[in-house]
């Protein structure tokens, strides 16, 4: 079964090792903490873009309330992964907690796209192993990057741009999947207003609040116009 799991998760291995390493290098070069804090974060937080955002929040000594809100909202897409897996995880017993904890973008896409037999217990065991393998790759990547960033000395000025590049890539992917540019303009508009009106320490929370309000208004307007929001 482990061999089968390894084959299934191989594409994730090729994604998680370099991305985990990028996080580890970023962590070790931007911050003064010990390298092993990077894999520790991979163990207990386990969120790619979340951990990379955490580096810049740590560097800015962000307040803990802002950290909680930023992390929650950045990962809010996970709320909607769970919705589609409620049935699949039902009855998974002690494994269920870990299946939920390990529900990253990549694990979600693998669990929802792989072929499944009618043997529910067997499939949930395989889901569990897939989740664990993926997290292991991620932790190894974080550790390797942390060590590399601490041992190899190079001029890392500007490496923090990886965060911006990651957000740009994720935005393009989300908009392409959705086939609708509206959230792109809603997000840009909210960020613009926040940057104009609010000092930089509160921009993130302000922009998140504005974008939520914009989406609620958008929802209300769609309901008023069509009686039903258009989700075709």
């Amino acid at each position: 079964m482990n061999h089968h799991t390894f084959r299934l998760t191989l594409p994730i291995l090729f994604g998680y090792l370099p991305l985990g390493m990028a996080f580890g290098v970023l962590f070790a070069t931007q911050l003064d903490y010990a390298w092993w804090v990077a894999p520790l974060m991979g163990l207990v937080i386990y969120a790619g873009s979340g951990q990379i955002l955490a580096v810049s929040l740590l560097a800015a000594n962000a307040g803990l309330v802002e950290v909680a809100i930023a992390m929650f909202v950045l990962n809010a897409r996970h709320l909607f992964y769970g919705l589609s897996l409620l049935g699949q995880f039902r009855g998974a017993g002690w494994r269920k907690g870990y299946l939920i904890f390990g529900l990253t973008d990549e694990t979600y896409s693998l669990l929802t796209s792989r072929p499944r037999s009618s043997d529910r217990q067997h499939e949930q065991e395989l889901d569990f192993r897939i989740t664990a393998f993926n997290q292991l790759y991620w932790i190894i990547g974080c550790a390797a990057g942390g060590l590399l960033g601490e041992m190899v000395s190079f001029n890392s000025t500007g490496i923090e741009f990886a965060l911006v590049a990651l957000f740009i890539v994720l935005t393009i992917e989300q908009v392409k999947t959705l086939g609708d540019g509206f959230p792109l303009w809603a997000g840009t508009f909210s960020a613009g207003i926040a940057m104009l009106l609010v000092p930089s320490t509160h921009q993130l929370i302000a922009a998140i609040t504005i974008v939520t309000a914009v989406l609620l208004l958008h929802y209300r307007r769609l309901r008023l116009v069509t009686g039903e929001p258009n989700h075709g």
Partner: protein
Amino acid sequence: MGEQYYLAAFIAISALATFATRVVPFLFFERHTEHPLVQHIGRYLPAAVMALLAIIFLQRSANWQSGFIGLDALIPGLLVVIIHLWRRNALLSIAVGTAVYMIVQQTGWLL
């Protein structure tokens, strides 16, 4: 607050906030998955949040005081968009954009 306590609290809060996004549907939403507002937010919020993060952090990476008003970050950012639309390879887009930004910052072009 000592630096180590701050780090420990930071990691604990990040872990809890991240886990919360994953566990909430299993705790509260079993009965509301069909609600149109939940579906609406689920459809648009993730992309909108990514876009606002991209814009805010792009703006923070740029030097707006120079004669090139922000081009030091806008050009690498635009490069990420172009390469990603072209190849759809996330690691390639991130690596090239970051490398170009690092070169710009370290050599002082456009600053």
